[in-house]
């Protein structure tokens, strides 16, 4: 650990505090408005839990939330595994066309999701894949993959190939080297990639919007449709529950698993 003068480290802590305030300001408001009577975010604030009661009766919103969670978790698992494997290949091996493969990661990010969504709709419709949760999963994994590969590759760029060579020279197999040497070193990158994948899927509304069918829909699609007419703080309520739930979940998990990646 760098020994910084106390005032510098104090300043650093203060700075992080400010950044967190910036990041959380809208979330705190979102949560507060889920307890406010006015559906139009009117002040003064009047306490109510009616939106949570209304939410508990809203089967459509609850089902959509569960669908979203399910798809986000599956997307995270699939995209993290496939993406990490691809990053390792791009890091380890040298071959013709490697740069092209790396450049190909950008179109899915650069093309507005609106166009990707429309393109998927037409293509899936034309090829018989159809619409529904399976199509949404197919699309989400594809959208999340570039993020995972870019993030994991950024971490791999700081990883020394010599470590792998050392392991090989000591007689370790490729799999042993990967599992015992490489993966632990880039674990923070993999975890970050997975978190990215989750966020990309969980907050994805454009692509889901085109691929959803009635009854097979996700939370952002429901929210998007709801703001058109009669947006209610039920949406804030469900978002608040999700944030509180994921916060608790992550802190429980972090007790058993080190995210920060101390070396």
């Amino acid at each position, binding site marked *: 650990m760098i020994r910084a003068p106390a005032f510098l480290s104090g300043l650093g802590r203060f700075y992080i505090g400010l950044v967190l305030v910036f990041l959380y300001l809208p979330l705190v408001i979102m949560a507060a408005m889920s307890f406010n009577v*006015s*559906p*139009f*975010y*009117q002040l003064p604030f009047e306490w109510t839990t009616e939106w949570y009661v209304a939410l508990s009766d809203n089967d459509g919103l609850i089902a959509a939330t569960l669908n979203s969670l399910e798809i986000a978790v599956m997307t995270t698992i699939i995209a993290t595994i496939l993406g990490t494997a691809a990053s390792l290949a791009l890091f380890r091996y040298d071959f013709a066309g490697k740069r092209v493969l790396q450049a190909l990661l950008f179109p899915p990010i650069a093309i507005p999701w609106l166009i990707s969504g429309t393109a998927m*709709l*037409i293509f899936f*419709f034309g090829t018989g894949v159809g*619409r529904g949760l399976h199509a949404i999963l197919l699309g989400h994994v594809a959208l999340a993959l570039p993020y995972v590969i870019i993030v994991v590759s950024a971490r791999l760029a700081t990883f020394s190939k010599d470590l792998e060579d050392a392991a090989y020279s000591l007689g370790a197999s490729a799999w042993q080297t990967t599992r015992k040497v490489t993966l632990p070193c880039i674990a923070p990158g993999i975890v970050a990639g997975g978190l990215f994948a989750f966020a990309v899927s969980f907050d994805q509304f454009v692509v889901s919007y085109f691929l959803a*069918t*009635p*009854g097979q829909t996700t939370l952002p699609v429901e929210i*998007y*449709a*709801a*703001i*058109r*007419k*009669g*947006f209610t703080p039920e949406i804030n309520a469900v978002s608040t529950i999700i944030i509180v739930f994921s916060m608790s979940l992550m802190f429980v998990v972090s007790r058993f698993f080190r995210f920060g990646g101390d070396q």
Partner: protein
Amino acid sequence: MNKTTAILAGLGLLLTASSAMAKDLHVLNWKGYGADEPFATKAFEEMTGDKVVNDFFNSEQEMLTKLRTNPGLYDVVMINAAFMQQALGEKLVQPIDTATIQNYGDLDEAQAQSKMLNVDGKTYGVPWTWGLTTIAVNDKAFDTAPTSIKEMWKEDHKGRVTIRDDAVEAIQLGALATGQSINDVKDMDAVKQSLSELLPNIRTFWSSENDWNQMVASNQIDLGTYWSGSAGRAKTKFNLPVSLAVPEEGAVGWLDSFAIPVGSTNVEGAEKFINYMISPEFYKEWDETVGAPVSASKRAVAALPEDSFNRKVMGAPEVAERVQFQEPITDQQREDYLKVWQSLKVGAN
């Protein structure tokens, strides 16, 4: 071999079972626009046993896209009459046997016979509601409602006006303000000029009812264009200080209708649903508990109290005189309008 037969037999059983049971009825409409009101779906399900499955669109283009890419999925679709020709041209909707819809006779004659909904002697759309795109005001900013559309251009409302971010609506507003027909804009330069003078007054563009209502609730706007049904909902359902005005320059009228998409698997249910949607029972409850535009059914409107907005104001002869009903717009016109509108918006900052 055995296994396949068993599966086939099982499937057959399932199929017969489900056809004997209640059917699903897939409805495509704007969200929060009558057909998905819980009281309505509940009443309809109790009446017929069919289960209503709602799906929504956020623009007419999206509605058409959903019909194109989901043949056979939807049983009922809500179509703005001005878009019916396009849906028909693409063979997305099928003729309706109006004899099966008992309440059809209650409809306003002119609307039921509209050329936009009837082609070659066949009826493709059943008129449901009509309303206005006109101006609505924040009651806190006005003692008496303005009588001229020019109010929006006044200096006092700088930064306190809102209009919808929609090229067609914007051009039609400009046409009204410059005394032109909304369906035949002859002097586009005057429209451009008028809109570019309006833009400095604009606080922001609205795209959903929620935008409008939030801005009124936080007292950020004085007036703006709004839909008559939405203004009614803002007042009835949300108790917001919103009043609708029909200015002397006129207002844009639209007619919404129900159609049955090609390939519907539950035409019978669709006919029953449309019949229920134009019934006085449904309309009275919708308007009184939620807020609605004007029903196309004369009997349904007559079921409202005499002093209700949709009967008194919207039914007044002087209002009827001022309304210019939207006619179909070609794709080319629509693209031209969009181009004009985008350029105006970009020039504004």
